C-alpha cells in the first residue's frame, strides 16, 4: 500500500517539474511550447540509453546502442544537456518569429522525436522500449523494494524543490524583470536596450533542462520506457495543469500539477472498466480535462493561484 502511495507521489512530483518548466516558458516569457512531451522524451531516452543495464544492448540476437550502465547522476546531467541542446536548436529559427510559429514547430518536433524513437530501433529499441533502467543505489536497494521507492521519491522531491527555488529567484531577479517587461510589451523592452531574443532563448533552454531532468527521473521511476509514453496527450495534460493551477505562478504550477495529476491517477482506481472497451475510461478522463481547461480559460483564465505583483521597498532588496 505504502509503496503504491509513494509511487503516486513520485509520479505527480515528476509531472509537477514539467508544469514548472512550462510555467517558466509560458508563464514567465510567453513562449508557446506545445512540445513538452518531446523534451520529456529526449531526457528520458538519453538517461535510459546511458543508465540501463548492459543486458539491454542485446535482445534476440540484435545489438542496440543502449545499456551503458552509467551512474545515474551522469544520466541526469546528460538528459539535461540533451534537452537544453534541443531547446537551442528549436529556438534558433523560431524564437525570432511570432509565438504561433513556435507552437506549431514544437508540436511537430515532439511528434518527430517520437517517430524517431519508434523507428530508429538501433538506438532506442523501437516499440519494445528500453527496460532495466537502473535506479539510484540499485546495488544496495533492488528496484521493487520500498527503500528504492523512497530514495527515488526523495531525489525527485529534492530536485523539484531545487528547481522551484531557482525559478523563484529568477522571477525576482533583474533577468525576471526583463521577462515580465517583455511579456507585456516586447517592443518597448527592446527599445530600452534589452536583447529580447537572448532572453527568450535562455528561458527556453532553462525550461528544456527542467523537462529533460524530469524525463530522466521518469525513466528511473518506471525502469522501462517506450515511445507510447510520450504522446502529445501528455503535453496537453501539462498545459491543463498549468492553466488550471495558475500560469505565471510557480506554486500555481505545482498546485495544478498535483491536483490534476493526482486526481488522474486516483480516478483509475475507482472507475470500473467497461468491458470490451478498455480505452473508454481513459479517454473520458482526457475529455473531462479538456472541458475543464476550456472552462477555466473562459471563467477564470488566471487559474487558481494567479500571478502576484512585486513591490520593492527601499532596503527591501533580497539578501
Amino acid at each position, binding site marked *: 500500500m505504502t509503496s503504491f502511495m509513494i509511487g503516486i507521489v513520485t509520479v505527480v512530483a515528476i509531472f509537477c517539474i514539467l508544469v514548472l518548466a512550462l510555467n517558466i516558458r509560458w508563464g514567465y516569457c510567453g513562449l508557446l511550447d506545445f512540445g513538452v512531451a518531446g523534451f520529456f522524451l529526449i531526457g528520458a531516452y538519453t538517461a535510459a540509453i546511458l543508465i540501463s543495464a548492459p543486458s539491454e544492448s542485446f535482445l534476440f540476437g540484435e545489438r542496440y546502442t543502449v545499456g551503458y550502465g552509467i551512474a545515474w547522476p551522469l544520466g541526469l546531467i546528460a538528459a539535461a544537456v540533451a534537452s537544453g541542446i534541443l531547446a537551442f536548436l528549436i529556438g534558433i529559427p523560431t524564437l525570432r518569429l511570432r509565438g504561433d510559429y513556435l507552437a506549431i514547430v514544437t508540436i511537430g518536433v515532439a511528434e518527430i522525436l517520437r517517430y524517431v524513437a519508434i523507428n530508429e530501433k538501433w538506438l532506442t529499441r523501437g516499440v519494445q522500449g528500453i527496460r532495466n533502467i537502473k535506479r539510484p543505489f540499485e546495488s544496495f536497494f533492488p528496484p521493487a523494494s520500498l527503500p528504492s521507492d523512497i530514495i527515488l521519491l526523495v531525489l525527485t522531491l529534492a530536485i523539484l524543490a531545487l528547481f522551484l527555488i*531557482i525559478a523563484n*529567484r*529568477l522571477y525576482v*531577479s*533583474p*533577468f*525576471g*524583470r*526583463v521577462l*515580465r*517587461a517583455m511579456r*507585456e*510589451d516586447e*517592443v*518597448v*523592452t*527592446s*527599445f*530600452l*536596450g*534589452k*536583447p*529580447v531574443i537572448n532572453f527568450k532563448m*535562455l528561458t527556453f533552454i*532553462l525550461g528544456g533542462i527542467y523537462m529533460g531532468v524530469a524525463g530522466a527521473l521518469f525513466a528511473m521511476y518506471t525502469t522501462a520506457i517506450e515511445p507510447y509514453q510520450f504522446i502529445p496527450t501528455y503535453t496537453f495534460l501539462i498545459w491543463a495543469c498549468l492553466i488550471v493551477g495558475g500560469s505565471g505562478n510557480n506554486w500555481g504550477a505545482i498546485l495544478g500539477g498535483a491536483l490534476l495529476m493526482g486526481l488522474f491517477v486516483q480516478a483509475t482506481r475507482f472507475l470500473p472498466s467497461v468491458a470490451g472497451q478498455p480505452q473508454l475510461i481513459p479517454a473520458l478522463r482526457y475529455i473531462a480535462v479538456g472541458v475543464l481547461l476550456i472552462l477555466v480559460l473562459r471563467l477564470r483564465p488566471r487559474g487558481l493561484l494567479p500571478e502576484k*505583483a*512585486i*513591490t*520593492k*521597498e*527601499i532596503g527591501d*532588496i*533580497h*539578501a
Partner: protein
Amino acid sequence: MLKAEGIVKNFGGLRAVDDCSIEVEKGSIVGLIGPNGAGKTTFFNVITGMYKPNAGRILFKGEDITGLRPDRICQRGITRTFQVSRELKIMTLLENILLAFKDQRGENIIRGILNPANVREQERENLGKSVEILKAMHLYELRNEPVAILSGGQRKMLELGQASATGPEMLLLDEPTAGATAAETAMLVNFIKRMREEQGLTFLIVEHKMEVIMGICDKIIVISYGRKLMEGSADEVRQNEEVREAYLGREA
C-alpha cells in the same frame, strides 16, 4: 551627432518619406514639426530604428546605425520614447525605472539565480538612482503602484524618467507632452532643459504644441508631405510662408 541622409520610406505604393536629410548637433535641442500625416512620425520611426528605410542611412557619432536592432541602438546611446505612452502598465513605477538601467549584472541568467553580492549591490545602487528620478518627477509616492493608475501626463513624465535611466547620450522624444496638463508640460520642458545643461544630452523632439517647440528648440525642422520643407530658428520658421501654408492657418 546624429545625421540622417537621404531617407526614403515606402509603404506599399505610398512614399511616406521622400529623400529627407537632417543633422542634429551635439548638445542641441532640435524640434521636428509638420502637419499630421506629413510623414514626420514615419521619418522619426525610421531614425529610431523602428522601420528600415528603403534608401538612405543614419549616422550616429559618425557610425552607421541604419537597420540596427532597437536594443543595439539603445546600447549605442540613443533612447526614444513613444507618442502613445507605452509604459509597462502592470509593473510598478519603480520597476519601470529599474528596468531601464544599462549593464545590469542581474540580467545575466546565472547571476540572476545566484544573486551574489555584486548583483545585490548594483540593485541597491540602481534603486537609489530610481528613487532620485522618481522624486524629481514628483512621482515618488506612487513608486509601488502599477503604472496603470497614472494620468496621461504622469505617464509621460515616467517615460522621460525611464528614458533618462538608460544613460543615453541622445534622446528622441515623440510628443513628450501629449496629454500633459499645462503644469506638467512646464515640468517636462524644465527637465529636458536641465538634462541638456547638466548631462549634456542631445534632443530630437517631435511636437505639436508650438509653445513648447518655440520655447526650447535651438533649431526646428519642418516636414511636410514626406519632404523637408525647411529648417531654421524659431523665428525663421514662424515667418516662413511655406510653413504657414503647410499648416493651413494653424497657429505657427
